[in-house]
């Protein structure tokens, strides 16, 4: 598979039991397309930036802990919102989100 070197099993192992991907009987749960894109964005950008999944997990666990749940928000929405927080934090830490110039 040329799409990515990072198989789903690698992501599962990386996020670990502390922050497992939302699933329903094994199937990944994407309630809205942006959630799948958030996951894909993480995988692709970490790969291209050469960032480690261990760093990402650290940020993800922190983002989940830091995030207060919103009214009526589903578990998958909360998870992938935290996922975006973590991705931004990690890329910012590596200076990849600074505006050019």
């Amino acid at each position, binding site marked *: 598979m040329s799409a990515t070197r990072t198989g789903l099993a690698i992501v599962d192992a990386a996020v670990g039991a502390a922050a497992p991907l939302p699933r329903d009987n094994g*199937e990944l749960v994407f309630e809205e397309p942006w959630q799948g894109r*958030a*996951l*894909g964005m993480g995988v692709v*950008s970490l790969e*291209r930036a050469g960032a480690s999944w261990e760093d990402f997990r650290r940020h993800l666990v922190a983002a989940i802990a830091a995030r207060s749940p919103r009214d009526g928000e589903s578990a998958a929405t909360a998870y992938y919102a935290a996922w975006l927080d973590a991705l931004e934090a990690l890329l910012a830490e590596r200076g990849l*989100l600074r505006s050019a110039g």
Partner: protein
Amino acid sequence: MSDAHEHHHDGHHHPRPASEVELRARALEALLAERGLVSTDAIDAVVELYEHDVGPQNGAQVVAGAWVDDAYRERLLSRPNEAIAELGFGGAEGDNMVVVANTADVHNVIVCTLCSCYPWPVLGLPPSWYKSSPYRARVVAEPRAVLREFGLELRDDVEIRVWDSSGEVRYLVLPMRPAGTDGYGEDELAAIVTRNSMIGTAVPVAGEAAVA
């Protein structure tokens, strides 16, 4: 688990513009694309891959491991979660695995009579027949007939044990290592361990590669 499959069909959500978090996701994707860190195609490919990237290969490695290493087999039967985790597999829903070993006198088969609970961290997504009402009802009532329909003919004196999975306990069948595999390495062994042999509706056969 069945409750988790209930959805609300009685009425519409209010149509609403993209949520705040959705807009954030789009903005981040645009920014990352600008930096050359992602492309729409690459993200699409990952999502597509992940939605289908589940198969029984993990379980096959577990079984092959148990075939070549008696100590691992013992750990697998006595502490399945830990033994499976040793190979790097597992997940929140895969907790409370129970591994049931086939012997010359006992054949095991798994089902989820209530819905479709399945040991997905090792077997991937369940095949459609596993989720079908006929299988769920009949494998309990007349397992021998059902297995025969799968092409598995068991001797009359072989006891068939049917294990009903649930959200709390998920079973994996450890099939017997088939004859004629003495010279096989672990990877060759894993290659003949089919998904159905780990559900119990088939047995592995030497020289017959598993098809996911």
